[in-house]
């Protein structure tokens, strides 16, 4: 089975993963991402790019973007869905469980710790100050993550237009993200069909 998965990865990605990735490695990598993700699933992106793309070469920036689109439309938590999409090609179901447990373990531990001390802790001034500054850092990190996705995803004028339209729609918050992703997928197919037609007419 492992050989089949490895074969798939080799076809899917530019790089080669010859060695079987350890389950503990998967668990720890995702625990790290879970522990450092402040905010929703989008805040994971810079961390996933660093851990899974740059450090371990498990996948590419484009794969991350594709999985994010799928994770948004699949039921459940985006973070857990992302963990599943990334871990499945590495180690199948065992990898999926390791990654999902890894990504939630730090949260569960921290909240349990906080819940026992909550009344006092949530009002400590130091923590408020720290989080106000962390929010600025997370914003900047997400901007850089978007820049990477932009570089990979925007390849011509139609993709440029899709980017600008979704950015505007997102800022104005007029369409649900799930609907936007469905529309974008559909538009991608239509645009490609039109392109093929035009190329056919030209000959």
């Amino acid at each position, binding site marked *: 089975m492992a050989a089949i998965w490895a074969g*798939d990865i080799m*076809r899917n990605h530019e790089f080669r993963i010859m060695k079987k990735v350890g389950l503990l490695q998967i668990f720890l990598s995702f625990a790290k991402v879970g*522990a*450092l*993700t402040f*905010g*929703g*699933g989008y805040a994971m992106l810079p961390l996933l790019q660093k851990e899974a793309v740059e450090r371990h070469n498990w996948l590419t920036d*484009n794969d991350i*973007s*594709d999985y*994010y*689109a799928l994770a*948004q439309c699949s*039921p*459940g938590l985006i*973070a*857990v869905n992302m963990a*599943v*999409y990334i871990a*499945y*090609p590495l180690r199948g179901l065992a990898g*999926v*469980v390791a990654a999902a447990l890894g*990504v939630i373990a*730090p*949260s*569960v531990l921290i*909240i*349990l710790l906080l*819940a026992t001390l909550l009344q006092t802790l*949530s009002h400590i001034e130091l923590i408020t100050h*720290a*989080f106000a500054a*962390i*929010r*600025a*850092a*997370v*914003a*900047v990190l*997400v901007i*850089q*993550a*978007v820049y990477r996705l932009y570089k990979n*995803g925007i390849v011509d004028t139609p993709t440029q237009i*899709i*980017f600008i339209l979704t*950015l*505007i729609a*997102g*800022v104005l918050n007029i369409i649900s*993200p*799930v609907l936007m*992703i469905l*529309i*974008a*997928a559909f538009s*991608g*197919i239509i645009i490609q069909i039109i392109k093929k037609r035009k190329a056919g007419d030209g000959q």
Partner: protein
Amino acid sequence: MIYALLFWEFLKIGLFAVGGGLAALPFLYNLSDHYNWFNYHELIDMIAVAESTPGPLGINMATYIGFKVAGVGGSLVASLSLILPSIAITTIICTMLKRFRESKQVQWAFYGLRPAVAGLIGAIALSLLQIAIFKENFRFGAAVDIKALLLSLLLLPAVFKLKQHPIVYIALAALVGIIFKF
């Protein structure tokens, strides 16, 4: 049986809340109406705590509610049942994705999806920046938080040029926030 009830309720949320942690909110309001586990006020407190602690929002909320209702066991039951549908459904999608991802139509769909994901997260990035830099919700004349603005302007070139692990910037920001009283 309180564990079975927690399991069932959070399994439902995990199955039907599409689009991340905040999508679970309407379900949690519903829970609050049905059981005497927590009231609206506590729910808002929970959101604040969940937003300011690391990790997926939904897990933070499930752990907290589970703990409140049935202690440590309750928190484990709630958080595990919340992720169970994600794991099951997404794994099934994965097995099919392997087959479909190389098909032409799926490639075309991703051609449209990639810029959309960049745009959607770009919009989130802008709203994050706005929350970090403006003291109140954005409107004309809203007070700009000079310290946060300066920190963002300093971090921006650093993040693009230095390419350190994100933890470096998060830890650095936390330190700066404490020292300069953000």
